[in-house]
């Protein structure tokens, strides 16, 4: 997967036509094969842009930044990124007319070790679902919603769910104990766009900023429930976590419950489709309620 040339051409064209003020893409970090997101405002810098299977970070995050606010933005999105963008559009966080979206029919990105990321091996929507231009793929121009792969519950979630309750409790206690409350997970999430997070409110009775296991539990649970039915599994949070916590477990658990019980809902796949908690069906399961 290498769309460097095409993206450079498109970006140069957009700048030449005056369609965008800033282009958000990736560049090489200059010494190894890792990449750094880059916000290009000068058309001369377009040659810096690259796109390979090391283009991991979800760039939709930059739509919440000071640097793109009220500007016309060109943006590269992979399958999962485009789903989060779709949600941001649906939730009125960005205006569609201000964006020029280059969608990628993604073949999966790799981690530091060169292994395909877990979320990519399980991905059911690899193609961008919202775009002005789609690169790669055979069906360019039309949507390939669920691809050919059936939805699978995350392997780690299945493994944990099979564990006895006490072991699972002990495992998660370790997870929350190792959280250092830096909130990087939240800041790196494209869908956590609130100006002030509820977890940061200075209301001592509800939340506090202390770094204890209980406050980490509170913060991460609240966070994951706010993203339930909206998380697109881009794993920005996991990349950002300095303690390498398996944060995807919480999200994938919610995702699987939602997929299985609420009419196969997948966040952000269908345009104008809001999160799973913003709608309901009369057929929703009722058997767990007395």
């Amino acid at each position, binding site marked *: 997967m290498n769309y460097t040339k095409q993206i450079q051409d498109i970006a140069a064209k957009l700048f030449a036509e005056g369609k965008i003020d800033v282009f958000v893409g990736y560049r090489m970090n200059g010494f190894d094969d890792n990449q750094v997101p880059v916000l290009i405002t000068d058309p001369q810098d377009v040659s810096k842009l690259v796109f390979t299977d090391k283009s991991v970070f979800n760039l939709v995050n930059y739509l919440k930044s*000071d640097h793109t606010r009220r500007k016309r933005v060109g943006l590269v999105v992979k399958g999962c990124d485009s789903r989060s963008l779709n949600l941001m559009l649906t939730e009125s966080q960005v205006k569609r007319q201000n964006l020029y979206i280059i969608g990628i029919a993604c073949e999966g990105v790799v981690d530091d070790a060169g292994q395909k990321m877990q979320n990519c091996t399980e991905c059911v929507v690899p193609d961008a679902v919202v775009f002005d231009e789609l690169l790669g793929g055979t069906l360019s121009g039309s949507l390939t919603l669920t691809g050919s792969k059936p939805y699978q519950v995350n392997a780690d979630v299945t493994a944990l769910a099979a564990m006895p309750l006490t072991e699972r409790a002990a495992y998660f206690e370790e997870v929350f104990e190792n959280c*250092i409350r*830096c909130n*990087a997970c939240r800041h790196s999430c494209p869908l956590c766009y609130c100006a002030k997070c509820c977890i940061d409110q200075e209301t001592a009775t509800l939340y506090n900023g202390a770094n204890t296991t209980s406050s980490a539990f509170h913060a991460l649970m609240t966070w994951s429930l706010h993203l339930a039915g909206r998380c697109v599994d881009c794993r*920005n949070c996991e990349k950002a976590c*300095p*303690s*390498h916590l398996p944060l995807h477990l919480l999200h994938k658990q919610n995702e699987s419950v939602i997929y299985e019980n609420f009419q196969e809902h997948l966040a952000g796949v269908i345009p104008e489709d809001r999160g799973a908690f913003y709608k309901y069906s009369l057929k929703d399961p009722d058997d767990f309620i007395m």
Partner: protein
Amino acid sequence: MNFSTFVTDKAGLHKFYEDIMASHETFAPVEKFGKFDFKKVTSLSECDPESPIAKTLSIKPLFFPRSAKVMKYVATSSGTDVSETDEDHLAGNRVILGVKHCDARSLQVLDKVYNWDYIDTDYQKRRENTVIVSTRCDKAETHCFCTSLDYDVENLDALDVVVVNGTEGKIYIKARTEKGETFISGMNIDNRLSKNEWRKADDKTAGEIKTQYESFAGSFRLKMDYKEVNEKLSKIFDTPEFENVSGNCISCNTCAFVCPTCHCFKISDEKVKDTGVRYKSYDSCNNGYFTLMAGGHNPRPVKYRRWRQRAMHKFVYYKERFGVNLCVGCGKCTISCPVNISIFEVVNQVSAASMQE
């Protein structure tokens, strides 16, 4: 003052470590989820004193806890009682193993801020009752640039006891401070190990250690002229370059939390009915409401200003105030950064841009 140096080998070193664990409260890097954090250990099998810098969190939390309980209070009908809490790690002698020299160095840097004017007695106590056994790296990692900052390669490792890997499986154990010297002699290691395994350094040792240092200093990818950068940065507060370089920062605060020298904190209360606890926990200047005042005035309302504050505090302000550089060049922020921003690159880019103006 001359401190003693000992020569040993891998087995001798491990015995030395195990002796320490048997007799002291010991902290060492323990792996959890692929990342090492300093935790209490009792045997060598639990930990890895040679953990790579890239995967190890700093030792800062052992001196400046991630969350310290400041006080507790109980409100009763007869009045409010405020009590100090007994903080951990204040009593007893602690030893920290497997500290990288940049981490050890960071404590010397932090000493300055904690000991000016109001003295942080808890920090001081923790410093006093802790012996640091640091390890000299053999080779620089990708993002290291400690040799580029304002100390020479001989004096990078300033604290207590230093373990240096020599050639032919030799390992040198150097005392660097008086505390380290008394610590080693207090361990009585010679009684338990044979002459072959543990002996005093001879004339050649100093030369061998020097060679190791030189090969270490030669392995750096990143090098900068610190004096020049410092001088330039101090003059370019208003450069628009800061806005450019901060563009791809997502203000996630990770850098501050993993940084061994970042020392900003917040004070927060946790209240339940009539009782409550006050915590002092980490905070970051990259946080949008770090300086936001009630009423809405914010001196650093936009990202590039906060970024500038962080870079300038690291490379200019602290030096101006306390005489040392706040950055120790460990590269932890760069490694942890989700978007791979390198502070080294940024600082150089900004100062280079100022040259062109």
